[in-house]
């Protein structure tokens, strides 16, 4: 008898302590590709997200973002944010299963993820079905915010804006730099959600702007070689290649370009693999002169000091610079924290409401954006893109011209003259 009473008491104590600890931390599930071909990108995203959470939980206010150094969320009596990471391996099914597990097992207040547009699609479906807010900081497929979801919020601009930017950039080049108008565009993209979506938009905008699409090659990712793809591009003799690739394919395609002696006037990349720190490390000087759309660049720190400061923190901890991907993951955690803080609760409905009312000014971000404010589809309407070019092994902002730190180099110098 006494033993069972004691056991009951122990269970009750345990339950109480669990309840108490649940009050002190806000669990956010974060799903990224931590293994698989994109693992190195995934780890960067994870590190950036964790840095954001630690800054909010810590007391160092020197960064100057409003929640950084708050010592936890003031709206929830200083409750700390705990990120629970899950690995989707670049696989949409695994992404959905992990979202399910984070919700059921860890009772997360919200989810963030998942970099790959395909995985974001499935993981956010799970969140939608369970009524849990899903914040997407880094997937650019336009379709994601055209699904009529109520629980889906995206801080990054999507590919439609990026593609518009690319054509504005080309127009500006002709107008202000007197570069002869290129006519022939070849589209080269991986054939999952991200690449096919971007390719469709590029095709549409190219036609509207009077360009000719001379070739469109969609390739399956995770192949061993891209020889036939590159030969097809070469045969079409394009002025500009517009390319959407993840890291492994970005590296493989560049090596194949060089081996087969293929060189367009310009390579306009669609972020992703081309903007991964590993890309530059692996390619060395062969990575130079690639032009890419971006949402972030280190040299913006000259005009926006908070960027340089945040970068110094990441450097101190992991020895790497921020890039467009990791800066967005970092920003995603801040956007979620801001909403949960204003909600003053970890109830999904309260967080959803707070997200809908989000209005973060641009000065409070490490992005060159006007701010964060979601429209009815959950899309941030104040995002903006920039265009960078790899020069001397670094990404330099080259457009818009008023933010540019370097002049664009056009056309690309040939492989043997570098």
């Amino acid at each position, binding site marked *: 008898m006494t033993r069972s009473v004691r056991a009951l008491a122990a269970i009750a104590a345990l339950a109480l302590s669990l309840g108490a600890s649940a009050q002190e931390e806000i669990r956010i599930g974060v799903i990224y590709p*931590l293994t698989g071909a994109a693992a*190195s990108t995934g780890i960067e995203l994870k590190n950036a997200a964790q840095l954001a959470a630690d800054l909010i939980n810590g007391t160092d206010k020197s960064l100057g973002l409003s929640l950084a150094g708050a010592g936890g969320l003031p709206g929830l009596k200083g409750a700390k944010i705990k990120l629970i990471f899950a690995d989707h391996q670049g696989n949409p099914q695994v992404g959905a299963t992990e979202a399910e597990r984070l919700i059921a097992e860890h009772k997360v207040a919200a989810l963030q993820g998942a970099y790959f547009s395909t995985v974001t699609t499935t993981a956010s479906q799970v969140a939608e079905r369970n009524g849990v807010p899903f914040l997407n900081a880094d997937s650019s497929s336009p379709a994601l915010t055209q699904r009529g979801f109520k629980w889906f919020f995206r801080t990054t601009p999507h590919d439609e804006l990026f593609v518009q930017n690319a054509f504005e950039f080309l127009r500006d080049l002709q107008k202000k730099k007197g570069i002869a108008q290129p006519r022939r565009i070849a589209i080269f993209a991986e054939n999952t959600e991200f690449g096919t979506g971007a390719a469709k938009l590029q095709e549409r905008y190219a036609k509207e702007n009077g360009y000719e699409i001379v070739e469109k090659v*969609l390739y399956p990712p995770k192949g*061993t*070689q891209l*020889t036939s793809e590159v030969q097809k591009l070469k*045969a079409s003799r394009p002025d500009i290649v517009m390319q959407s690739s993840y890291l492994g394919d970005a590296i493989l395609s560049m090596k194949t370009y060089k081996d087969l002696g293929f060189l367009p006037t310009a390579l306009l990349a669609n972020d992703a693999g081309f903007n991964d720190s590993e890309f530059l490390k692996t390619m060395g000087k062969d990575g130079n002169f690639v032009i890419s759309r971006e949402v972030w660049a280190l040299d913006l720190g000259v005009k926006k000091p908070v960027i340089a400061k945040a970068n110094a923190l990441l450097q101190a901890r992991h020895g790497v610079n921020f890039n467009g991907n990791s800066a967005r993951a970092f920003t995603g955690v801040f956007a979620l924290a801001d909403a949960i803080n204003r909600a003053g609760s970890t109830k999904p409905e309260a967080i959803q409401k707070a997200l809908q009312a989000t209005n973060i000014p641009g000065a409070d971000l490490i992005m060159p954006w006007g701010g964060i404010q979601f429209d009815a589809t959950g899309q941030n309407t104040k995002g903006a893109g920039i265009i960078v070019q790899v020069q001397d092994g670094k990404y330099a902002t080259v457009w818009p011209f008023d933010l540019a730190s370097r002049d664009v180099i056009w056309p690309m110098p040939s492989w043997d003259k570098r």
Partner: protein
Amino acid sequence: MTVELLLQTLLSGILFGLVYALVAIGLTLIFGVMDIVNFAHGEFLMFGMYAAFWAFALWGLDPIVTLPLTTLLLFAVGVAVYRLVIRRITDAPMLSQIFATFGLMIFFRGLAQYLWKPDFRSVDHTIVAGKVAFAGLQFGLPQVVAAGGAVLTTAAVWAFLRFTRLGAALEATAADKEAAALMGIDAQKMFALAWGIGAACAGVAGALLATYYPIFPEVGSTFILVAFVLVALGGFGSVVGAFWAGILVGIVEVMGGFLWDPAYKMVLVLSLYLIVVWFRPQGLMGKA
């Protein structure tokens, strides 16, 4: 212009196919001798690449220079894997064998990611850097060297099986384990040898690939599917079959992707596989 492009594409396909073949002959050898499918074979390739990479990164040694060492190292890895794991499952049900090598695959990948991080690495300058250009065609020298190395290695393995007593003993064990044992051949030794040589072939492939291919923990997975196709296509256990199948698949993949749609290049490869297996279940060179 078009003829050049076609010729270039065809030859690129053959060059790549030869490397496929080199990965596959190790796999087919192990399968032929032991009837065990080694799912971790791609990871042997990955270890070979990393061995070449680290020798380069730490001591500045070229992958081509360290190739003999990489080969020996992988031979040792193959024998160790046999002695520690495979020996215990030689007579186990097929499902256990599949789980064992599949488990090894996941373990090795995880280990590589833990030890060496998931980063993409590459050997940024090698003695085989450069280009081979003739008649308007051009190829990376590393690719040409890798293909040449693949041909030599395949020939060496073939000659070993064909002309040496040890090779004959290996073939005998593959043909009939019991009968070979009655003739005084130590099956355990032969099995260990098959694993050693099989892994060493992957090691050679890894060292050669390291001169031009990015190196990362999952790199084996991209090659292994094709290697399985080659083993079945060439005939289970047939080294020569895997070699010709490699060239064939290389051509079909690259030419098919170029002439048709790259999105379907693997459809062509796998259709070829299905057709061959349908009409000739023993593969192109396998014995019925």
